[in-house]
């Protein structure tokens, strides 16, 4: 083997080893690398419910209710399989809407509802003009009435 072939082999082998090590490390820390847990994970006891953690999912349609004090907001975060009722008092991001994604940070109360100290909106990667969105919504509506 020529000297430069030796060096090339060394670099490729080094990168493969490092890549493998990185993959193993990231895999081992899988649970710590997620930004939020799903309501299903919380129900299965996989979330760190003892301390502050985050739950993410969709804000269930029709679930947003303002309490009588005008500050507290109650809503339900769902992953369509399981859902968690959330209460929160504070400013909500503009994109916080029913049927859209949200990530809430806080603690699980004794009665099973989630007391959020922070609410973040999670938007998707779809970008389209309002007219296109309108068409998509109508198509959804049509397919839903068809299937009923």
């Amino acid at each position, binding site marked *: 083997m020529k000297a430069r072939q030796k060096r090339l082999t060394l670099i490729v082998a080094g990168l493969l080893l490092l890549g493998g090590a990185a993959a193993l490390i*990231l895999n081992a820390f899988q649970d710590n690398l997620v930004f939020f847990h799903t309501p299903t994970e919380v129900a299965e006891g996989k979330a760190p419910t003892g301390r502050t953690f985050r739950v993410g999912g969709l804000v269930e349609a029709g679930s947003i209710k303002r309490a009588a004090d005008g500050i507290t907001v109650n809503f339900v975060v769902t992953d369509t399989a399981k859902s968690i009722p959330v209460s929160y008092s504070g400013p909500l991001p503009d994109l*916080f809407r029913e049927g859209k994604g949200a990530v809430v940070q806080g603690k699980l109360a004794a009665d099973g509802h989630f007391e959020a100290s922070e609410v973040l909106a999670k938007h998707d990667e779809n*970008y389209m003009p309002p007219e296109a969105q309108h068409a998509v919504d109508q198509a959804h509506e049509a397919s839903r009435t068809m299937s009923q």
Partner: protein
Amino acid sequence: MTRSRFNIFRFAVPQNFYPLAGKLAPIFAVTAAVLFLAGLWISFFIAPTDAQQGEVYRVIFIHVPAAWMSMFIYLVMAFWSAVGLVFNTRLSAMMAHALAPTGAMFCFVALWTGALWGRPTWGAYWVWDARLTSQLLLLFLYFGYIALINAIDDPRRADKAGAILALVGAINVPIIYFSVKWWNTLHQGASVSLTKAPSMATTMLMGMLVMAFAAWAYTIAVTLWRVRSLILERERNAEWVNEELDRLEAAA
């Protein structure tokens, strides 16, 4: 078989690459300016308002090209570093050095515009999710690379040390790219990828791609100019460099 007279490897010699870079750089600079203006025009006047986010989504036309470039430039840096280590070519290391500041700049722009986009949409400038954290690590890798090659006086040793850092850091790039797939993050997934149809309106996509090409052309232009300076600095003991410097002085 007769060998063709044109041999691309002759441009691995700094003395031959210097005039080529000088010829190509202005072409890419003009291309970048034209594409940048066209891209901004599409971004602000032709692309429609987004149904969800309103006008704020227009950050995407800077944010995504900058983020793409920051990752791609690091990979190109790692490539030239590997070539330099394997073949012991002088020019390869200079290419890697010349790319680093532009990569760091795009990385900072991606983080900065991301923060400005995150506040009105997510409700936070910054969160420690996998995508944002790995992108911040990329910025530190760029800073670390620039600091390292400048901290070592002997250029050959600086090249080697920098090359190893660039190669090791390259492992972070696929982590950034796939972070939104491997873990749940606040950052949304990719709208444009090789494996699926883009999930955005055509004019929006056009604006983003034109801006991305502008960023490419800009990167090539500034890198070539920077490589020219590096060649003059590194080869300052060569006869042709002294002649070139005299010529530049006379022209100034």
